[in-house]
């Protein structure tokens, strides 16, 4: 049985709408990671922070948990993310631990703790259907053909995520704080000499990254997929880190990467469910599942690399007098 009765443009509208929805968690996490990395800190703990954000967010709002408003859940997830970001900053900035390793450590910590809390507090699957952020239908605009469905029938976190892109660009390029972030990422010794407190700036970005990773996790559990299961982020935190490299540390390009990855993944699902064939043969599902990753790697390899924005001091802890 092959072929749905949907036309190609109908499929594309659905796929594009789903693309914006499912790119949201990536976007939050990746934007947070952009800030951390632009200041010189590689945070591989995003995955673990997302998991903690996802669990705490849904636990707060679900009737199986505390039964609070979605906004409260989001705030708790931000707080949890911020605290984990603070812990990551203590380890990587103050104690100058190897960033890659400590990040992995935080990921495993987040995975273990969220699973433990999930089992001990909830005992089983938590769902939050109807309790989380619902899709907001924007009057008039949502009735527009094609773009109404794609752009104007999403939940509030989707709008926030995409609004954060220009805001991030503005912060990084137009504010003093942004200048300091870029300075400590490029040449912490020079920034230090100019009187910038390198550690304080890095603390601020890593905590911000944690907050955004917490939102990313919560966006998954209380907006995009209102449910929690153990390890529900399933590697999305690492995809977010990859997207930062993919996007060459520019929020706009990171967004493009998140959209590309999301659309590629959604289209492979369409290819599977419509049983798309090549020369009369169904494509093996394993091949389709790999496709978004292969595409991402291919783009990474072949796209002209913009080293211009790469923070020179990335992964290097700052020690006064040594750098």
């Amino acid at each position, binding site marked *: *049985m*092959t*072929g*749905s*009765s*949907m036309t190609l443009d109908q*499929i594309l509208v*659905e*796929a594009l*709408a*789903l693309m914006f929805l*499912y790119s949201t*968690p990536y976007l939050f996490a990746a934007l947070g990671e952009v800030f951390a990395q632009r200041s010189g800190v590689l945070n591989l703990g995003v995955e673990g922070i997302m998991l903690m954000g996802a669990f705490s967010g849904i636990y707060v709002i679900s009737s199986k948990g505390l039964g609070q408003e979605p906004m409260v859940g989001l705030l708790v997830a931000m707080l949890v993310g911020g605290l984990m970001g603070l812990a990551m900053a203590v380890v990587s900035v103050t104690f100058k631990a190897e960033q890659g390793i400590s990040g992995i450590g935080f990921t495993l910590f987040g995975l273990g703790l969220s*699973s433990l809390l999930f*089992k001990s507090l909830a*005992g*089983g*699957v938590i*769902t939050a*259907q*109807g309790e989380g952020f619902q899709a907001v239908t924007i009057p008039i605009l949502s009735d527009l053909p094609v773009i109404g469905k794609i752009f104007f029938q999403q939940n509030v976190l989707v709008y926030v995520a995409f609004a954060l892109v220009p805001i991030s660009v503005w912060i990084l390029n137009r504010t003093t704080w942004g200048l300091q972030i870029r300075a400590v990422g490029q040449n912490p010794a020079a920034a230090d000499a100019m009187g910038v407190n390198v550690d304080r700036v890095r603390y601020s970005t890593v905590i911000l990254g944690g907050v955004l990773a917490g939102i990313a996790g919560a966006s*998954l559990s209380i907006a*995009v*997929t*209102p*449910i*929690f*299961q*153990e*390890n*529900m*982020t*399933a*590697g*999305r935190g690492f995809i977010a880190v990859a997207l930062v490299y993919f996007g060459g540390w520019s929020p706009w390009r990171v967004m493009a990467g998140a959209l590309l990855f999301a659309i590629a*993944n*959604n289209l492979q*699902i*369409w290819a*599977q*469910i*419509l*049983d798309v064939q090549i020369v009369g*043969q*169904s494509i*093996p*599902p*394993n091949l389709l*599942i*790999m496709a978004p990753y292969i595409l991402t790697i291919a783009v990474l390899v072949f796209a002209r690399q913009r080293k211009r924005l790469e923070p020179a001091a990335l992964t290097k802890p700052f020690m006064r007098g040594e750098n």
Partner: protein
Amino acid sequence: MSRKFLALILILLLSLCVAGLSSAQDGPVRVAIILPSSTTDLSWSQALYDAAVAVQTEMGGEEAVEIAVSENTWDVTAAADAMRGYAEEGYNIVIAHGTQYGSSLFELASEFPDTSFAWGTSSDAGMDAGLTNVFAYDVRAQQGGYINGCMAGLLTESGVIGVVGPVPAGDAILYNNGFEQGVNACNPAAEVLVAYTGSFGDTALAAETANTQIAAGADVLTGSAQQVPGAIDAIEAAGGYWFSTDVDQAPNWPETVVASMAYDFSGVIEDIIAKRASGVNGGTAYELNLEDGVTMVYNEALEGVPAEVWEAGRQAEADIRSGVVYPLAVLPEEPFRIAIVMPSATTDLAWSQAGYDALVEIQQQLGGEDAVEIAYTEGMFDVTAAAEALRGYAEDGYDLVIAHGTQYGTSLFELAPDYPETAFAWGTATDTGVDQGLTNIYAYEAGAEQGGYVNGVMAAMLSEAGTIGIVGPVPAGDALLYINGFQQGVLATNPDANILLAYTGSFGDTALAAETANTQISAGADVLTGSAQQVPGAIDAVQAVGGYWFGTQSDQSGNWPETVVASQVYNWTPVVGSMIENVLKGTLGGEAFNLTLNNGGLEIVYGGVEVPQEIIDAANAAIAGIQSGEIVVQQELPEA
């Protein structure tokens, strides 16, 4: 100093003694379980863990059974480490709950011969590898998949059904394959959208997949692995329905889950413990199926589901249990090509039609002409011409070539060695050519004497004259079995009955069959039966005098509803299904199949005649007696 030293040694020795004594006592059975996902996955892992806990509770708690669990051990290397650890720590039974653990399990099993190892899904208990301490368990997940699929097919309003799979492997692929067949069988017009997430635990991706399928129009979904809560939530939000597997998920989503196929592994675990207690460490391959270990749970409290959906589900379950329906474990990736050569027409209401109908039915079940291609040559009473046709099909590269007649056997045995890549089948026969070194021939026969007996019982009760006619073709093959069984049934019911038996010497001479029937009617027969494609002539003759007819091979009531009381119907579908399944798995022959009342291959189908209840009761009693073995129907008549 030396006294202190001695005292120390004494204490040491004493404690060793105590330790030795305590280990000599019967401690708890120590069971270690390796799970690919978590014990709360609402799925595969949870099903086994719950079973282990149930066994523990039943046997007397932690003092009787100690359970250790390694969950989320998807990684095969980590699982191997865990298994070794448990074996070294002296666990009695190590269960590796995943097909992927097989090779490491076999290595460990030879190292730790006193430990019992179990794994699934698999049917390989390591006997071929010389191991005596391995248990294997298989699940026929396609059975529950079929039932769910059938119900889903009838329930969908949009005609679009989504399947959210984890990876195309293990019990998930079996379930999905069965599900697709169920949809095909009950609603061929419905579209099944299958997508795999590539993960077991990615709840969000499962939700995305489900939402994509919903966007593509799906209103009924199914799926497996611990990721499914995301998908169930998505379909619940969309107001659709969900079908579950592995565990009953209705308690969590009572408004959405229609039916669940639930595994119960406790029987397997109990049996392993019992076997060990009797000194047997392995060697059994278990199978969980609807008869044992697989339960269908229907959430009938769910409102809005039409009654016909529940009925269809229960009917499908009954049909699978009785063997009438056979869901395949594997589906053909490219069209499976079957060719059949038949002695008469596909519409002969008898032998050839029964064979051809089975092919058409399995074609629909597997997904229509895109899945199964059928070629046939009918009317091949000439054996030489049939041999040419068979060779032609083999030459054309058909996957399965069926010679549907005993008379084709000789040519088939000459042909088969020339085409070792082609699977052949013939019947009625029991010889697969293994003695001659042939490995690509299946044989099939029908235990026609069983239904013959049942028909005979009814005929004897229905005949007022006590005279019954039998129109036979030639005294051979399934016709002879049927006629012999029929006579036994008649005489068991009415020892004084007068049986008029005549053979026409032909299979297709309709006029001669009519003449034979008329002759028997003239001789006082008011109830008749007969076999082969010649019978329409005989049935017509019986109708003309207002008598009754009993059929065999196909349901013959269609054209003569007032005359045909009942027919023994050959259902070759499970046999054809088994052969296709074996060929897809790479086994091209070597098995002989038999249709019986027990395995669903034979069915008694009533026509339009109003039959007194006592006669139907007698027929049912005869069927039950044959099934239970109380009534033994001989294939040959005892010498009078």
